[in-house]
């Protein structure tokens, strides 16, 4: 069997290295032949990487256990989709997946810009190829997915049953792709710094790439939370685990960037800041990729023993040194054209938004690397857990929530105190009404009450914006409400798409507040025929049910659920023992039912020979709102992504009366 894989990756490495050098040489000397050659070489690298990826996928599909990676992650009985998904579940494979995904994105970006931004593109190519070179170097010389095991074992070790779950088919590739996709905007930043073309050009070129990266990474994180909740069975969805933190930090930086870039577009401000944010987002993505794949932060001893650790560390330092160096060199050209004129302006709100996000990222980063820092400084590791993150991030999140409501109400440049005050009346009134309703519903604790009122404020503010927009349109046209709304969104898709995204965030926020403050946990042991009363729910246990399939033996504890006379679907929390994995502990089948926005979440922790079932029962309010926020987020993203309509001409019989800009 010809070693196509390693040869393809080596060829890709050579092509990427050549592509980087040729592009830079061509750009600096103005030799277009080199630039073209560099660009073609980038496509060649992409081709070879795809070849290498196909080779690994083929080996996985055909169960070629002569490859150590295939033997480690699959076995004769692993179904084909889990065989293929182990492409990205192991360390070497996930690095190859990262490279493959980057090569595809690079090909798209290079193709889309083949006739544009000709000054920037050679450096963009070089930057992307530089990153590819690093990953290919690791894949060829340090952590090859194509290491052989001779003689080839008859059967592989197989995929851990815990990972044999549909969620694992989509969450890791989405998350890794989300981390990877920040390379493209970063490459454009490098191009802009190298060429000195730091005006709107690179911002316009990267707007959609940054938006796509933000969306993929956000979806990946949300899917991770979903998987954690539905599969791991610990009753929660986010534990401030180092791996989770490493994946969310670049997303917060990206969110900050998406806001502050609007200030640069409108007022020519925050240029250095925006460049810095994208550099930070990319560095955190590399850091995140490394943390997610190497266990450095969760294991006490592992950094020095990780084979790829030192390489990532050096790469990160090089990237930082290069980017900061370029930034420092171009600092004089990045001076703001304008300054902030008033605290009561949208610029100030965006700036505050950014500072809060940076504060959030700092707090999360601090809490995540604290063990490493203290180990280096004091020789003993100190850690912080969920209480730290909740106590520090909570207030910041609340401030950001309020800002989401305040921002749209403020005009650009300078707000007239009276007009701004007037525009606040409706949203504040709306949130006050909500606060009273919540109080009457029994929500009296200050933190959830405050949080939910802030959410109501944001929703009111957004509704007011939509209403004002529709009203302003209808004042000058004979459109019906629906048509006016549709045209309003179409003409201002970035703004109203942003509002939809904010609504999605509020939905997620309400879910987080509800489940954080009002969840309950109970531990009960039930004998056959016994029932338990939990928060008004009556759970009746019949007797243990055993089901055997060719792949697994399932032991379930059927619980019939009633409350106040209404019967709900029966829950089947279970323990599943997989064939060929009898020595492994059984995996948990979590039973969840969403009843009127409360999740009844039951886990069977143990069952005895006497037929008794040990159950953990959680009531998690409003968690389904978090998942509902996902599709809404995607919708808002699509609205933002949509190409803006070309301005249309219309003959006018008489001049229109002037329309105040803040009404549109």
């Amino acid at each position: 069997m010809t070693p196509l894989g390693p040869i393809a990756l080596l060829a890709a490495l050579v092509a990427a290295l050549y592509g980087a050098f040729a592009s830079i040489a061509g750009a600096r000397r103005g030799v277009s032949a080199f630039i073209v050659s560099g660009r073609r070489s980038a496509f060649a690298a992409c081709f070879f990487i795809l070849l290498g990826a196909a080779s690994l996928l083929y080996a996985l599909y055909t169960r070629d256990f002569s490859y150590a990676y295939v033997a480690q992650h699959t076995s004769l009985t692993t179904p084909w989709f889990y065989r293929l998904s182990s492409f990205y579940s192991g360390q070497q494979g996930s690095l190859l997946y990262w490279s493959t995904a980057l090569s595809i994105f690079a090909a798209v970006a290079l193709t889309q810009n083949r006739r544009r931004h000709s000054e920037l593109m050679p450096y963009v190519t070089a930057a992307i190829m530089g990153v590819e070179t690093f990953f290919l170097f690791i894949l060829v010389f340090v952590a090859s997915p194509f290491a052989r095991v001779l003689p080839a074992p008859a059967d592989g070790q197989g995929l851990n049953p815990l990972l044999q779950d549909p969620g694992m088919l989509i969450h890791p590739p989405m998350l890794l792709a989300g981390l990877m996709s920040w390379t493209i905007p970063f490459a454009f930043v490098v191009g802009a710094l190298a060429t000195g073309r730091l005006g709107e050009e690179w911002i316009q070129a990267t707007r959609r790439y940054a938006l796509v990266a933000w969306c993929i990474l956000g979806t990946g994180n949300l899917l991770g939370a979903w998987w954690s909740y539905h599969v791991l069975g610990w009753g929660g969805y986010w534990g401030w685990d180092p791996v989770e933190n490493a994946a969310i930090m670049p997303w917060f930086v990206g969110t900050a960037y998406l806001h502050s870039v609007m200030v640069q577009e409108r007022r020519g401000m925050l240029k250095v800041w925006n460049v810095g944010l994208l550099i930070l987002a990319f560095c955190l993505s590399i850091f995140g990729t490394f943390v997610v794949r190497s266990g450095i932060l969760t294991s006490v001893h592992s950094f020095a023993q990780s084979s790829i650790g030192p390489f990532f560390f050096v790469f990160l330092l090089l990237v930082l040194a290069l980017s900061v160096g370029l930034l420092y060199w171009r600092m004089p050209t990045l001076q703001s054209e304008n300054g902030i004129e008033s605290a009561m302006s949208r610029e100030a709100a965006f700036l505050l938004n950014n500072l809060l996000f940076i504060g959030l990222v700092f707090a999360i980063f601090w809490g995540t690397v604290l063990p490493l820092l203290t180990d280096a400084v004091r020789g003993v590791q100190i850690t912080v857990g969920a209480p730290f993150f909740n106590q520090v991030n909570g207030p910041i999140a609340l401030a950001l929530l309020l800002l989401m409501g305040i921002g749209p109400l403020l005009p650009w440049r300078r707000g007239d105190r009276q007009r701004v005050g007037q525009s606040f009346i409706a949203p504040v009134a709306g949130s006050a009404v909500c606060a009273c309703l919540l109080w009457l519903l029994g929500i009296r604790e200050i933190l959830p009450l405050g949080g939910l009122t802030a959410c109501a404020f944001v929703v009111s503010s957004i509704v007011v914006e939509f209403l004002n927009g529709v009203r302003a349109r209808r004042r000058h046209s004979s459109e019906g409400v629906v048509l006016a709304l549709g045209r309003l969104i179409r003409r201002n898709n970035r703004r109203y798409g942003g509002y939809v995204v904010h609504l999605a965030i509020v939905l997620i926020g309400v879910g987080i507040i509800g489940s954080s403050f009002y969840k309950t946990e109970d531990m009960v042991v039930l004998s056959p025929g016994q029932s338990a009363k939990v928060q008004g729910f009556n759970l009746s246990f019949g007797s243990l049910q055993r089901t055997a399939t060719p792949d697994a033996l399932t032991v379930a504890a059927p619980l019939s659920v009633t409350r106040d006379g209404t019967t709900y679907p029966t829950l089947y929390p279970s323990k599943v023992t997989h064939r060929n994995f009898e020595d492994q502990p059984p995996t948990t089948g979590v039973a969840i039912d969403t009843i009127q926005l409360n999740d009844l979440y039951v886990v069977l922790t143990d069952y005895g020979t006497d037929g008794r079932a040990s159950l953990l029962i959680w009531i998690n309010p409003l968690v389904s709102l978090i998942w509902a926020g996902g599709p809404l987020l995607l919708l808002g993203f699509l609205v933002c992504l949509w190409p803006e309509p070309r301005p249309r001409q219309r003959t006018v019989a008489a001049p229109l009366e002037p329309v105040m800009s803040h009404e549109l």
Partner: protein
Amino acid sequence: MDTGVGREFRRRGVRRQRRFLVAGCVLLVGVAYLAFTVTKASAVYYLTVPELEARGTSGAQRSVRVSGVVDAGSVERDPSQFVTRFTASDTGGTVPVIYKGPVPDIFQPGIQVVVEGRLGTDGIFHADTLLTKCPAHFQAATPVAGAR
């Protein structure tokens, strides 16, 4: 021509920018201060088993975290009490652990665990939380199960 009025506007502009810069720094310092105070209140030492044994029960008020590998044959479960008992080893030290609560699916002898809790006067580590490491994700070396 640079009139005195223009200069005055610019001077005010610079002062305004500086005020915003100061306000921004104050905000960031505030966040940092919040982070540091909460860290002091909620910091937990992360020890190896030998370090835990050396520490003993001194400072037993504060929680600590310990990492180790679950010893073969040491796992006892009492389903009616949701209690799991086991011993964890790491570079030559072993500590018995007692834990009440949900147990991750991959928990088994040979797996690396991180427990948070207190070492009791009975010499048993009373754990409030139990975390395990998913072996398929990480290839880094785990703590060595102690050769006793």
